[in-house]
């Protein structure tokens, strides 16, 4: 449990406003404990900047336990840093070496415009869900929870997809800035469960149409999204989206 201290150089993307040009700025940060989380390290940097009279680095974060999906950092060219199945807030400084230079960039994708520094706008994801990522059941309409059995194995599959935290790492890591893993996670979850059946065909058609409209790229099946996903959502769900889409395209009652 003993802690080592690191001296680091941080190359951080600074951008004052959405339409202004940004640039990298280098900061020295000494005495970083290896027990710190990555975001705590940024907190320390910001305290140092405030003391020096420089405006602190803006970065999105909230729950700091890897579930809210708010944090979104490209750390040394990897979404959420080097670990698999980990968000930036759960990444710890013990993963870095003394003397290292760490490059920190925002997610880069045209549908995710930068708002300031490392903060991007991910409302495109909300609009994709609005296009069909739901079950149309008004409050009060529900039958008893046990009235439709869901085999444990199917429920587990749905849960694997539902675990998506909507952080956008899949888009950030994909060389095409494709949102297929995000979209497929919701399509997959609801197409596996009996509750999602009535809207199954339209859901996939509408969500894909919205995804395109937002300007995300297409899927080249490199599986980089799966490697970057902190919730470890599998590309198997992309294959399921493809099947769902094909079926809907060919056989749905339009």
């Amino acid at each position: 449990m003993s802690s080592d201290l690191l001296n680091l150089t941080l190359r951080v993307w600074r951008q004052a406003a959405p339409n202004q040009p940004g640039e990298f700025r280098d900061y020295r940060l000494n005495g970083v404990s290896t027990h710190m989380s990555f975001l705590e390290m940024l907190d320390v940097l910001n305290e140092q900047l405030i003391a020096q009279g420089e405006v602190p680095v803006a970065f999105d974060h909230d729950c700091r336990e890897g579930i809210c999906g708010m944090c979104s950092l490209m750390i040394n060219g990897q979404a959420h840093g080097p670990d698999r199945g980990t968000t930036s807030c759960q990444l710890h400084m013990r993963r870095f070496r003394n003397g290292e230079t760490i490059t920190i960039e925002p997610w880069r994708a045209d549908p995710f415009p930068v708002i300031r520094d490392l903060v991007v706008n991910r409302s495109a994801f909300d609009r994709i869900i609005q296009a069909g990522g739901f079950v149309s059941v008004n409050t009060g309409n529900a039958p008893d929870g046990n009235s439709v059995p869901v085999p444990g194995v199917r429920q587990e599959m749905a849960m694997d997809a539902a675990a998506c935290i909507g952080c956008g790492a899949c888009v950030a890591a994909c060389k095409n800035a494709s949102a297929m893993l995000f979209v497929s996670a919701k399509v997959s979850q609801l197409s596996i469960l009996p509750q999602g059946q009535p809207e199954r065909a339209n859901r996939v058609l509408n969500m894909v149409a919205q995804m395109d409209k937002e300007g995300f790229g297409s899927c080249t099946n490199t599986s980089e999204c799966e490697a970057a996903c902190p919730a470890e959502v599998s590309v198997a769900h992309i294959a399921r989206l493809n099947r769902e889409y094909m079926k809907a395209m060919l056989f749905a009652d339009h």
Partner: protein
Amino acid sequence: MNALLRVLSLPAVFLSKIPGLAPVVRACSTSVGQKFLMAITGLSLIGFLVVHLAGNLQLFAGEAVFNAYAEKLHSLGPLLGIAEVGLFATFAAHIGLAISTASMNKLARKSSYALKETKQGLFILPAGGASSWMMVTGLLIFGFLVIHIMDLKLKKGFGVDYTAAMNADNEAVNSFQAVKAVLSHPVHAGIYFVCLIALGIHLSHGIRSALQTLGLHHKNWNFALRTLGFVMAWGIAGGFISLIVWALGSKS
């Protein structure tokens, strides 16, 4: 780029006028739909390659057998013409879709990262494995296609001596000798070799990717499917390369 896209979308506009097809055409114009068409045209082209390779392996059986096979093909007449048109259309569609999706992908990230690393550690090729080289290898294959048609369809290969293949009227009708002449030419053999390696790379991602795009993904079958894809990709590339080795060997 927009003008080009408009031209490329003409067939789709035409097809959407056919009653009942509109929803399908619309669906095919989305990113997912385009990837389907990529997959289907890609797999069709692989089908062609398999047939082509099966025919060409008859080179090993000697001049008489191979020329008889070539004769038989040519005797198909208009059927062969239709097949060729179909083949070119498939090629054109595959390439057109590649340009369309690639431009979509470029537009999705206009300013790129200062530093980008993969989280997948298994790649032999840099920049994220074969998938990152589809455009480059695709262009190489396209270039190869042009040379290949010059060499063996039009028999106008640059610097190739077709003498052995000629009949009395100076027409290069002996297919066996024409192939041998091209493949034994060191420059052509070199180009063919490089392009076939590119083909192997292209297919090693292409087959796997096409299967995933078509929704073939199941934990019980993934290993078998991936192995099959890999074996097919390098089987096809290796099969063609074996012909170059054969030609170079039999020259001496």
